[in-house]
Every structure is written in C-alpha cells, then in structure tokens.
C-alpha cells in the first residue's frame, strides 16, 4: 500500500465505516483504498462515537439498521456533537420512506446493497466536494 506521505502531497481522507455486517467491514476498506481513501471500521454506532475519532473523519459510510443506535441516530448525534461529517447511508432495505428520510436528514448519499463501486465513488466524491 502506498503511503500518501511518500507521494508528498495532501494526506488521503479518512472515512469511517459503520456496519454490523462483517462482510461490509471486511470488503469496504480495500475498495476505499483503491479509491484513494483511508478508512476505519466500526461494528456499531456506539463504538464509533466512543472511539473519539469523529473529528478526524472526512466522511461517514453507515448502515441504517443496526443493533442499538441506528444510522439516523448516529447522524443526529454527530450533529448534536457538532461534527459536520457528510454521511453516506448503505442499506439492504429497499424502503422509499427510509430513503426520503435519510435525504431529509441531510444524507449525501443513500445506496442500496449490493451497490456498485462506481456508485459509491460517486457518493464519496460528492461528500468530499471533489467533484
């Protein structure tokens, strides 16, 4: 893995991945690296919040339905805590109302699993204003 420091440029953005699904936690970081991002994975919203790394995150990719705190709750909590982190929701649930709510709450992206890599990349670029 190439380090960003070796290229002598801006450090690659840090993305938080919050999902209780292990396959997501396993597969997303590699894809994100291919996109040129760094990532940290968390198995629950609480874990992420407890980690204290929120301020470092440039973007949050989160599942909606999780045990304990949901993705929406997490989004709210971050706002409350004053972290202005763009959120991309990934979910297996195809529910229009959820999607609408997510967008109302200011989500940058709402992707249905299984999502294509390009769709994710598109959402990330929007989130980081790289478009």
């Amino acid at each position, binding site marked *: 893995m190439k380090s960003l420091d070796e290229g002598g440029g801006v450090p690659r953005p840090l993305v938080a991945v919050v999902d209780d*699904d292990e*396959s*997501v936690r396993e*597969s*997303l970081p*590699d*894809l994100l690296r291919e996109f040129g991002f760094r990532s940290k994975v968390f198995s629950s919203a609480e874990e992420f919040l407890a980690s204290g790394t929120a301020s470092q995150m440039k973007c949050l990719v989160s599942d909606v339905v999780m045990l304990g705190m949901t993705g929406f709750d997490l989004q709210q909590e971050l706002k409350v805590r004053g972290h202005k982190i763009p959120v991309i929701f990934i979910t*297996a649930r195809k529910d229009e109302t959820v999607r609408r709510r997510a967008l109302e709450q200011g989500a940058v992206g709402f992707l249905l699993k*299984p999502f294509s*890599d390009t769709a994710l990349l598109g959402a990330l670029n929007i989130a980081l204003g790289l478009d």
Partner: protein
Amino acid sequence: MPVEPESPTAEIRHLRRCINDLVSVLALPATWTGGTASQIVGASLDALVSMLSLDFIYARLREPGGTEFSDMVRVGSNWESKPGPEELREKLQPWLENDPEKVPAVVRNFLGKPALTLIPFQLGLHAEIGVIVAGSQRADFPQQTERLVLNIAVNQAAIGLQESSLLSAQRRVASELDRRVAQRTAELAAVNEELKKEIAERKSVEERLRKEETELKGSEAHKAAILNSSLDCIVAMDHEGRITEFNPAAERTFGYGRENVVGKHLADVIVPPSLREKHRAGFARHLATGKSQVLGRRVEMTALCADGREIPVEIAITRILRDGPPSFTGFLRDISERKRNEGALLETHAKLARSEERWRSVFENSAIGVALTDLNGQFIAANPVYQKMLGYTDEELEQLSFLDITVDEDRDLSSVHTAELLEGKRRQFQIEKRYRRKNGSTVWVRNSVSVVSGTEQLPGFLMALSEDVTERRIAEEALNETRSELAHMARVTTLSTLTASIAHEVNQPLSGIVTNASTCLRMLDANPPNVDGARETARRTIRDGNRASEVITRLRALFNKKDLTLEVFDLNEAAKEVVALSVSELQRNRVILQADLAAELPSVLGDRIQIQQVILNLIRNGSDAMSIVNDRARDLLIKTECDEGGAVRLSVKDSGVGIDSEIEKKLFEAFHTTKNDGMGIGLSVSRSIVERHQGRLWAIRNEGPGATFLFSIPCSTNT
C-alpha cells in the same frame, strides 16, 4: 051299614083270611128292611090294597123337615077310570088340610063312585109322620078284621117309617157324624198340619236364633277382639256423658286403666280443662236438640292424657240409637305423629313446589329457546323464547316435528346427528342449522341437543337448547370477509416482509460479493497489478457466494417448517393470488394462462401460504415444461373443482413436453430437478405439504401434449 051276621064257617074262613093277612102284614117289615120311606109305604099300600081289595089307599107323608108333604096312592082295580094321585089329593085335600080326624066315614060321589067309605089312619102318634086314607065302596067296609089289619099294617108302616126315618136319621146322624168326624178329623189334621208347620217354623226360628246367638257370640267375641286389638282408641259414653267403654288402645294412649275411668265423666278424664265447658255445652245441646257439630264427622281436637300432656287427636263420634237413652261411641286416634309428618310433608311439598316453580321459570324465562320433543322428534313442549323464535305457538308446534321446521338442506345432517344420539353413539351434539319460521323466513340457530333417557314414569325425550344465531352468522360472515381480507393483507404484508427479509438476508453476502469483486478488478487494473490483494478479494467473493447459497438453503428450510398455520380459506382465492404473483413471469414466458375455478368451492382447512407455494410450484413447473415449445400455444390451465368424497382439487395443465417415462419415477424425489436454476421448492416438498394436509399430489399425462399436475385436499366440515 047294618050287615047280616056271618055263618061260623064263613067266620072261620074270614078269620083265617084275616090271620093270613096279619101274617102277611107282619111279614112286610122284613121286605122293607133298609128301604126308603116310599118303599115302605109303597109296599104297605100295595099289600093292603090287594089284601083288602080296596078301591084306593092314599098315603100322605110328612117330609123330613116338617113342612112339605109327599103322597102316594095305590088304586084298586075296580074303577072305570083310575084316578091319579092328583085327583085323590085334590079330593082329600080339604079334610087333610084341617084335621085328618075329621075325614068323613062315607063320602058320596067320590070320583064316580056313588059312595065310598074312607078310613084315616094316623102314622105316628100324632100324625107326625103322615096319614093314610083307605077307601072302599064295600058296604061292610071296614070289617073288624080289616080294620085290624089296616091298623097293624099302618102301625107297621109307621114303625117301619119311623125306623126308616130313624135309620135315615141315624144314617144321617151317622153320616153327619161321619161327616163331622171326617170334618173334625180333617180339621184336626189341618190343625195338626198347622201345628207341625208351626213347630217346624219354630224349630227353624230356634235354629236361626241359635245360629244368630252363636254368631252373635262369635261376633261379640269378634267385636271384643276388635275393640281390644284396635289400635284406635274406642271410648263409649252414655247419655249422661259417663264413660262406659275404654278399650286397651285408649288405656295406652291416655294412660288410664279401664276400671279407673268407667263411670267417670268423659269431660273430666280426657277433655282438656280449657275445652271442658265447650264440651259440656255441646253435649247438652245435642241431647236437647239432636244437633251436633261433631257427630258423624272426623274432627281434630286436643285431648288430655293422664300425665297432663295434651295431644292432638282425630275423633269420630257416632251415636248409637237404641230404645231408651242414646249412647255414644268415640273413635280417637293420636295424630301427633301425623301432624309432625304433615308438617314435614308440607315442607317437602313446598320445597318441591318451589323447585318445580324454579325449574319452570327457568324453562319459561330462559334467555335461549328450549324445546322438548319425543324420541320421534315430535314436539312436546317449547318455551316462549323458542316459540317466538319460530313464530309458532306451542300448540302449533305439538303438531310438528323438528324436521318439519328445518330447512330442506339441513335436514340430513340433523337426522344423522339425532340418529347417533338415539343409538347411544353420542351423549349430545351441537349443530348450526336453519329453521323455517311460520312466516316462511329463515333463522340460523345453534342447537345443543341431548337425549334424556326414559324412566318408569316418564318416557324419554330429546331436549334442544336453541340459540338464534342469525345475527351472529351475518356478523361472522362479514367478519370472515373482513378477516380474510385482513389475512390477505397480512399475507401480502407477510409475504412482502418475508420477501424483504429474504432480500435482506441474501443481500448481505451479495453486497460483500459485489464489493470484493469490484475491488479485485481494480486491484488487477492497478499498475503494477496488486495480485495478492486480488487473490484475497477473490477468495472473499467465493466465500460470500457460498454464504448466500447457505442463506437460501436456510430460508428454504424455514419455508418448509413442519408446523402448519391452520386456517379455513378458499382455494380459489389462494390460487388467484398466486396467479397474480406469477402473471408477469408467465407473460414474459409467453404462457397463456387460463383459470377455470369452480363456482361454489367448499372451504379447506390448511396452511394457506404453504398451499400457495405448492400452487406456485405447479405453475412454474408447467411454465417451464413449455419453455422449449414453439410450435404450439403455451397453454396453462388452472382448474379447481369439487371431488366426489368431499375434497377440493386443483389441477395445473400444461401443453409442454409431457412426462418422460424415464423421469416419471423420479419426479417426486427429493432434490430432483431438471432445472439449472431451480428456485422453486420442488415437487417433493410440494407433495409433503399436500400430504400434511391429508391430501395427495399426483401427475397424469394429457391426452394431447403435456402433463397435468393435480392435488386434492379435504374440505373443512362446517360445525
């Protein structure tokens, strides 16, 4: 007339003749022995008239009795015309009438004779017997000898007559005596007979009396025995109210010995003090007026015992009528026991009446209909609710049986259940059925019917508790509709939820697969390619692919969970839903679907979802069987019908490749599939689902191309 004297020879001759005549006359009585008066007289006259050659001789005899006369005449031969007795009588009458003594000696012109000498002779000392008059016209008549002969003859005759009359008198007397004796004897005999009869009567009376006496004695003994053995008290009292008899039962009841109370006033012995005055007054009134309130009836009173107790008694007093003053007999019975029993009986009776009243009011006021029928179903009784429910009065119902008022369609079931009841196969049953009201309208009822066995007194009967459930049924039907709609909604929801959860379950590994595969490609596109990374991501991909497969397997297992969720549903509706789900897929496959669903299909009891899976399976199989058919229409026919035997049948007929004899055997085997992408649950699972519904699933070759797959499951019975 002076006559010349006779010569001595003539005299002798004369005398001799006289003596002969006398001898003859004296011999006369011998001739008339036992003769009658007329015989005597007649013989005498005959003899005299010839002996003396008289012209006539007339006799007049006094009849016995003294007032009548009879006469007799003998006439000599010297007459020109012989006079009859009447003539002579007539001639002599005047003299005889007055005094026979005054008969003249000579009579002139006597019946043609110039001169006739008459001589009267008295018969009897004072002519009491009679008179004889002899007459001759001879001048010398009567000579002495003639007179003598006549005298003697007359005397003889008189004696004879006397004798005869004596004899006849004797005879008369004798016969009279005889008669009298006979009479007397007869009388005596009669009297004797009478006496005999009387004696016999008396004897029999005596006998009877003796018998009566014996009987009396016997009955007296009997009566005494009755009195003594009677359990009832018998107390007799005379006209003064004193006790004359006090039988052993009375002794026991009242506690007195007979000898202690006989002679005492009844009032003082067994009438309680409080009632004595009333008793005395009543008794006195009766003796005075003959009226009584207690005679000849049974009355209840209180009596006093020796120990001071007062006991309730039943008394019947009768009066004995005899010559002389009356006496009275009282029959008393201690009814304390009876009073107690009466009380208990009344109480029991009251309880029974209350209980009866209660049960009657239950029957009458029951909130649901109650009807009783005999064992043939003919109504015996029906309470008001039942009557109102049916619109018949109970009299009208008594003319009907319960089958008469059951609608035709429900009669068979009713009869079957009732028969089972009567045969003892069940104790009771419930049935929901329809009655036809008197006005023709229908009412749904829920009946609970039981049989009540007969006893000796009461024959058995059927009892039905009948509840009008018309409203409930209507509500239920509405509810059922709603429920099935809801169920449908739920089903749809569940299905979608299920689908959603399936999707969710499968999407987890799928997501991983896509991500890893995308990463793999990018890694390989990098310069230089990240082979290690690619390998890792590829590995993950395969792993996730397997995981997805497992999920599906798991889900299929979940689908095939053994326990059925039972509900009553309509197979047609279930089939329509499945068809709706499959329509787009079928259209994509250019399958022409037709449905021939039976109009009135009975409901089935089962797991609706699982049956729908079976239907889906059959439809998909049918469609698949036609996937390579291009030369003819891809016809798929779904049909539902009623089986004989009370089952419903669904068949899916295709016009596909048909069943190959090779695969026919393996058709229903588990995991057998001809498809590469078998997503259905398979025929083996379908069959096991159907079999779990007590049905069967089978396949047949069509007459034309293709095959038909069918399953049948029993329909639910309406309770």
